[in-house]
């Protein structure tokens, strides 16, 4: 196992920067998720680490070697692809054996390792099949097996679960996590699904438009998103973002909506807003931090319920507020009807405030 360092990594296609100055360190044995919307440069970053595309500038270190100029085969990595990339003309056995053959292992050793991997992944009975004769989940296992037999320094995974159905995805998620714990493997895992990243990763690197936005543990990213993009990308349903205007009124700092209502800020939040260089402030609140009242309460803001989605455990209510959509979760025994008048109360402790111009989180110090 080994650590991985990306330093000032840049990849341009023509004039287009697919990866822009990305620097991050993956510690030995760490599970890091690269997460971000489609097209943000995750696959490109992973391919740079793998050596599948040449880097434009920057450096990559795996273990203690700078691997910038090394071929993929010499980087001691294994990779699992989104579409599995199983060799269609080879049987499962031969697919698993291929990386070992390429490393010129003796035949009996190959046989031993392939059988061992097949046993671990519970697919001994599939060894003679061709990939097209396997279900999606089985193909996925073979792809994983092909990475496993090698015992590489780093595992690279590019959306390995996104072609599976929802149920299988949840199951494989926990298996992968288990696999990471057992092997103490260094894993860089690419996904566009923030839930996968949050549930599996030790740390997650949130990317957007080729830039690294935030690199931290899921709990930290969730609790302290550095900007509006990260705030809205992580968490489901998405954090509600309401654009407001800051002003001072008889000693207090208040946020005023174009709709006319205003919200008095707590001391800490007021300090954040005062330090901002602009009056435009965006209020961010996660669904669970907004309290829904069915009758008027002081400090709660009037709104109209728009849709109501019961899921069983919780009921999600969407409301319009100041031109933004606000997600609220309520207990299922609170009956809310669409178009009903409701009042929303924001938790000052857990609300997020962003600079309306730079979109960065406002800080108190």
């Amino acid at each position, binding site marked *: 196992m080994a650590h991985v360092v990306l330093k000032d990594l840049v990849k341009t296609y023509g004039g287009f920067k697919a990866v822009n100055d990305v620097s991050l360190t993956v510690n030995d044995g760490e599970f890091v998720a690269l997460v971000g919307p489609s097209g943000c440069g995750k696959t490109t970053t992973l*391919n740079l680490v*793998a*050596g*599948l595309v040449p880097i434009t500038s920057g450096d990559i270190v795996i273990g203690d070697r700078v691997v910038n100029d090394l*071929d*993929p*085969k010499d980087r001691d*990595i*294994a*990779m699992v*692809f*989104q*579409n599995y*990339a*199983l*060799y*269609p*003309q080879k049987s499962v056995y031969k697919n698993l054996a*291929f*990386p070992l053959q*390429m*490393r010129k292992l003796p035949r009996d050793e190959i046989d031993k390792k392939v059988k061992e991997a097949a046993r671990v992944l519970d697919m001994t009975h599939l060894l003679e099949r061709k990939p097209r004769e396997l279900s999606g989940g089985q193909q996925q296992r073979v792809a994983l097996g*092909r990475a496993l037999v*090698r015992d590489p320094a780093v595992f690279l995974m590019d959306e390995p679960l996104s072609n599976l159905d929802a149920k299988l995805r949840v199951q494989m998620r926990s298996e992968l996590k288990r696999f990471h714990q057992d092997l103490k493997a260094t894993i860089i895992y690419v996904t566009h699904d923030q839930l996968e990243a949050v549930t599996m990763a030790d740390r997650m690197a949130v990317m957007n438009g080729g830039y690294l936005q935030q690199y931290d543990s899921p709990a930290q990213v969730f609790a302290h998103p550095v900007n509006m993009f990260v705030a809205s990308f992580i968490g489901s349903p998405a954090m509600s973002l309401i654009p407001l205007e800051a002003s001072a009124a008889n000693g207090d700092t208040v946020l005023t909506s174009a709709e006319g209502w205003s919200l008095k800020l707590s001391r800490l939040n007021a300090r954040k807003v005062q330090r901002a260089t602009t009056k435009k402030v965006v209020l961010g609140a996660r669904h669970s931090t907004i309290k829904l009242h069915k009758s008027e309460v002081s400090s709660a803001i009037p709104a109209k319920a728009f849709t109501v989605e019961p899921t069983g455990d919780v009921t999600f209510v969407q409301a319009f507020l100041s031109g933004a959509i606000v997600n609220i979760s309520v207990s299922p025994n609170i009956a809310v009807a669409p178009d009903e008048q409701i009042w929303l109360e924001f938790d000052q402790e857990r609300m997020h405030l962003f600079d309306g111009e730079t979109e960065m989180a406002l800080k108190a110090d």
Partner: protein
Amino acid sequence: MSTIAETASRGQTRRRMRVDGWRWAGRIFLVFMLLYTALPMIWMLITSIKSGFAATQFPPQWWPDEPTLASYQKLLDPQNSVGQDFLRFFWNSLFVSTVTTILSVIVAVPAAYAFSRFSFPGRNFLFFAVLLRNMFPAVIFLVPLFILMRVLGLMNTHGSLILTYLTFGLPLAIWLLKGFYDNIPVQLEQAARIDGATRFQAFIMIVMPLSTPGIIATAIYSFIGAWNEYIYAYTFLSKNDQLTLPVGIQRFFSENTTDFPGLMAASFMMSVPVVVLFLILQRYFVRALTEGAVKH
């Protein structure tokens, strides 16, 4: 209630009749096309088993009174001078076509792969330049190539033909194969490279086997093109022992044009190799066109 059902069922019969109408039109059309295609070939075969006398009767003998394989025996008899020539031409054609085919594949495969996978500057320009070759008739190149071949000392050699045939086979070959490579996920090669293969090994061990149908189609196309080519062979070759079949046949039947059974037998024999080859491998060809040319 009953009227609704009635109307509905009447609507249904009407629809079925209309569908049947199209289907019948299709069947009749196919029969017509079958006759158009097959009758000339059948008449060739029937003529080829007639004697010279039986072929020149009016009205024609629809089926020869005395069918005979004499024409074929003559063509295939190495003792006879006609047979000697014919077998020599046949061998020449086989040689030229086979070498052309092998070289086409060797040249087209890497080129098509590069056009599919790499994005080097000028890629599109080169690709279309290669395709544009298809646009130009043999005749445009004939005079200068005639001179070029003289300069290269390739006049009256099969080398001149092979070199020329390569170029007219290549554009379609490259186009077809590029379509194939476009459809092979690049991740397969990436996986192979990560599994320890070099770029070249990944190509040979993973990509090549998957593009076999395309390569076979390319090969058939080159072979048939070379086998049937006439105009360059007609211009570049003058020595009798070098001629390929299309030219050779013409040379030796223009002397006695009344030997129609012989001419038909020779036409038949000339067609057999390519038709057989094509029929055996046609599914690859259709697949290659679907994957290579059309789906593009």
